[in-house]
C-alpha cells in the first residue's frame, strides 16, 4: 500500500456538501497535482464529522490541523503554504466561539446595572443557612464595632447622620425614633422587627429574610445596645415559612456563636431574639396592633400617643422597625452615617428596595438609590410593558394605603415627599405596574375589597363604611353606576379616614378623593 506523508480529510457529509465541499475537494485534487505533490498527499472524503455549521471542514493529518469554512479560492494558498512549505494557514483555523464576548456582563444588563445594593448586598451570594458565610462577608463586624467601640449615643448619632427613614412606608427618621426610646425611662425595653409584610404585591421583606437573615439579627442587636434593650421579637407572618425557617436557623446559629444571648462577643452585653408568627391579619402590620398581637391579644390598633417609644410592647419603651430598615443598619454602622447620607435626595437618603411586579417585563426585587425616577425603575430596570400593543397606564405604590401614579407623573423621583405630592406614598416597596387593559375602577374595587376584608372592626366607620364603599364600587364595575355614586364615595372617604384609628385606610380612600 502506498504511503503518504499527509492525509487531508475533507468532510463529504450532506451539510458540508451543501456548503460546497465537493468543489473544494475538486480544487484540492487539482491543486496538489499542479504543485507536484500528488504522490505525497492523499485527499480523503469522510462522512459527517458533526461540525456542519462551520462546513466545509477539513482535518490535515498527522498534524491534526482543523480547517473550517473552506472555499475554492483558499485552496492554492492552503496547498502551497501548508503542504509544500509546511506552514499551516492560521486564518482558516477553527476558532473557539467567543462565548465570553457574546455573553453580556451582569452589569451590562440594565436590570442589574441601574441598581445599587445595600440592604440586598448579599443577595444570591451567600448561603443563608450558614452563619459563617455571612461572617465571611464582614457580617457582625458592625455589631463588634457597636459593642466594643461605640457608646449608645454614638450609635444613635451615626444613624441620625445617615438620614435613614423607616422603610415600612411611613418614613419616620430611624435615628430619632431610637433617640426617643433611649431617653424613655425604664429597665425593660424591646426591639421589634415588623416582618408582617401584608401589602398585595410586596415581597421585599420576605426576600431579605430568606436571603440574608443575619443582617436583620445584626441590625436589631445594634439597636438594642443603642436603646438599652435586652430582648427583641421579629413579628413575621406565618405565610412565610421559608423566611421563618431561615430566620429561626439564623437565631440559633447566632446564639451558638454567642452573637445573641449573654455576654455577646465577650463584651458583657446581653440581647436575645424571638420569632412571633402572625396569623395573617393585615392590620397587625400596624405597629400598635402588632404589639397587642405579640402580647397574645387580638391585634387591633390603639390611639397614639403614647407612642411605642414611650409605651409599646407590654407598655414598655419599644423600637419597631421594618425588615429593610434593619438590614441597612449594619452597613451604616460599619461605613458611617455620612457614607449613607451621600446617597439619595435632600430628604430621602440611601436606597429603597421595591418589589417590581405586574405588567412589566422583569419581575423581581429591585434596590435603587433614592432619587431614581419611577420611569427609570419601570423602563430601564423593569424593561417596560411586555405586550407591544399595550401602553403604560399607572403604577400602584404602597399597597392599600398607597395610590396609583399615572404616566404624567412617571418622572417623579423616589423620594418620600415627591411621591406623596403626586397622591401615592413610598410605602414599603410594593410596585405594581399596570398597562392600559387595567380598569382603574376595578383596581379601586380590588383594594377596597381587600381593606373591607381586613378591617379589624374596631372603628365603626371603617367596618361599616368600607362595606358601603365596596358595594358602590362593585356596582360601578358591573356597569350599574348611578349619578351621585361618586359624590357618595367622596363624602364617605374623608369621613371614614378622619374617624378611624389606623392608617390602613388612608390610601384607598385617597384613590377616590
Amino acid at each position: 500500500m502506498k504511503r503518504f506523508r499527509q492525509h487531508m480529510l475533507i468532510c463529504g457529509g450532506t451539510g458540508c456538501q451543501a456548503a460546497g465541499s465537493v468543489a473544494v475537494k475538486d480544487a484540492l485534487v487539482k491543486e496538489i497535482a499542479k504543485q507536484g505533490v500528488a504522490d505525497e498527499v492523499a485527499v480523503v472524503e469522510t462522512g459527517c464529522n458533526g461540525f456542519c455549521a462551520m462546513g466545509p471542514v477539513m482535518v490535515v493529518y498527522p498534524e491534526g490541523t482543523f480547517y473550517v469554512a473552506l472555499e475554492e479560492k483558499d485552496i492554492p494558498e492552503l496547498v502551497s503554504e501548508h503542504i509544500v512549505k509546511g506552514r499551516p494557514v492560521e486564518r482558516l483555523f477553527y476558532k473557539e466561539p467567543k462565548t465570553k464576548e457574546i455573553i453580556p456582563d451582569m452589569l451590562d444588563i440594565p436590570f442589574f446595572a441601574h441598581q445599587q445594593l445595600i440592604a440586598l448586598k448579599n443577595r444570591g451570594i451567600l448561603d443563608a443557612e450558614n452563619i459563617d458565610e455571612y461572617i465571611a462577608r464582614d457580617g457582625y463586624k458592625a455589631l463588634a464595632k457597636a459593642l466594643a467601640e461605640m457608646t449608645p449615643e454614638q450609635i444613635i448619632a451615626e444613624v441620625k447622620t445617615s438620614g435613614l427613614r423607616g422603610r415600612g412606608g411611613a418614613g419616620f427618621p430611624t435615628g430619632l425614633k431610637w433617640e426617643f426610646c433611649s431617653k424613655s425611662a425604664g429597665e425593660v425595653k424591646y426591639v421589634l422587627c415588623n416582618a408582617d409584610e401584608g401589602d398585595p404585591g410586596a415581597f421585599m421583606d420576605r426576600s431579605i429574610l430568606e436571603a440574608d437573615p443575619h443582617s436583620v439579627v445584626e441590625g436589631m442587636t445594634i439597636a438594642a445596645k443603642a436603646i438599652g434593650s435586652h430582648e427583641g421579637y421579629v413579628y413575621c407572618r406565618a405565610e412565610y415559612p421559608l423566611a421563618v425557617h431561615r430566620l429561626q436557623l439564623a437565631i440559633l446559629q447566632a446564639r451558638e456563636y454567642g452573637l445573641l444571648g449573654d455576654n455577646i462577643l465577650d463584651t458583657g452585653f446581653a440581647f436575645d431574639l424571638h420569632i412571633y408568627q402572625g396569623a395573617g391579619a393585615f392590620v397587625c402590620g400596624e405597629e400598635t396592633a402588632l404589639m397587642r398581637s405579640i402580647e397574645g391579644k387580638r391585634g387591633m390598633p390603639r390611639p397614639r400617643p403614647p407612642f411605642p417609644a414611650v409605651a409599646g410592647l407590654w407598655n414598655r419603651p419599644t423600637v419597631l422597625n421594618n425588615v429593610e430598615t434593619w438590614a441597612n443598619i449594619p452597613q451604616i454602622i460599619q461605613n458611617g452615617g455620612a457614607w449613607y447620607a451621600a446617597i439619595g435626595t435632600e430628604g430621602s437618603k440611601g436606597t429603597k428596595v421595591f418589589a417590581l411586579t405586574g405588567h412589566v417585563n422583569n419581575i423581581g426585587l429591585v434596590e435603587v438609590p433614592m432619587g431614581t425616577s419611577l420611569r427609570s425603575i419601570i423602563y430601564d430596570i423593569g424593561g417596560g410593558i411586555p405586550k407591544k400593543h399595550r401602553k403604560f397606564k399607572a403604577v400602584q405604590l404602597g399597597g392599600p394605603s398607597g395610590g396609583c401614579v399615572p404616566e404624567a407623573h412617571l418622572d417623579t423621583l423616589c423620594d418620600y415627599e415627591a411621591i406623596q405630592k403626586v397622591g401615592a406614598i413610598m410605602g414599603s416597596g410594593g410596585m405594581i405596574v399596570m398597562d392600559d387593559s387595567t380598569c382603574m375602577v376595578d383596581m379601586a374595587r380590588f383594594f377596597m375589597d381587600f381593606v373591607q376584608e381586613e378591617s379589624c372592626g374596631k372603628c365603626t366607620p371603617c367596618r361599616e363604611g368600607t362595606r358601603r364603599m365596596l358595594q358602590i364600587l362593585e356596582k360601578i364595575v358591573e356597569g350599574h353606576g348611578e349619578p351621585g355614586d361618586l359624590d357618595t364615595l367622596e363624602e364617605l372617604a374623608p369621613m371614614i379616614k378622619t374617624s378611624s384609628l389606623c392608617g390602613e385606610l388612608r390610601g384607598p380612600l385617597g384613590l377616590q378623593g
Partner: protein
Amino acid sequence: MAKLKISDLAKIKEQVTASTSLREGGASVKVTVHMGTCGIASGARTVLNAVMDELEKSARKDVIITTSGCMGLCSAEPLVTVEKLGEEPIKYSYVDDPKMRQIFNRHVLEGEIQTQWVLAKGSEQ
C-alpha cells in the same frame, strides 16, 4: 460550639474564604442554585436534585454545590450560577431538570458554556 470573641470573626472569615474559595479550597467549580421562595416555586428544588444526582454519577470531588437566596430577577427563575476556577461566574436562567443536567455535564465537567441559556456573566459587586 465555643462563644466567639471579636477577634474570632476575622478568623472565621479567613477559614470560610479558604474553604469556599475555589483556588484555596481545592475545588475547581462551584454551582449555586438560587433558592428563594421565587426560585423554589419555579422548580429550583428539582434543579438542585438534578445537579446532586449528576454530581454523584460523575464521582467528581472538586465540585461544590450550594444554595443561596433570591438574586432579584424572580421572573427568570430558576437561576443557577456556575463559577469555575479562574473564570467569571456564569448565571443561567429558566433552568429545569434536563437543562441542569446538560449544564453540569457540558459546562461544569467539560468547560463548554451553554450559551443558549446564559443570562449573564460576572457578579453584581
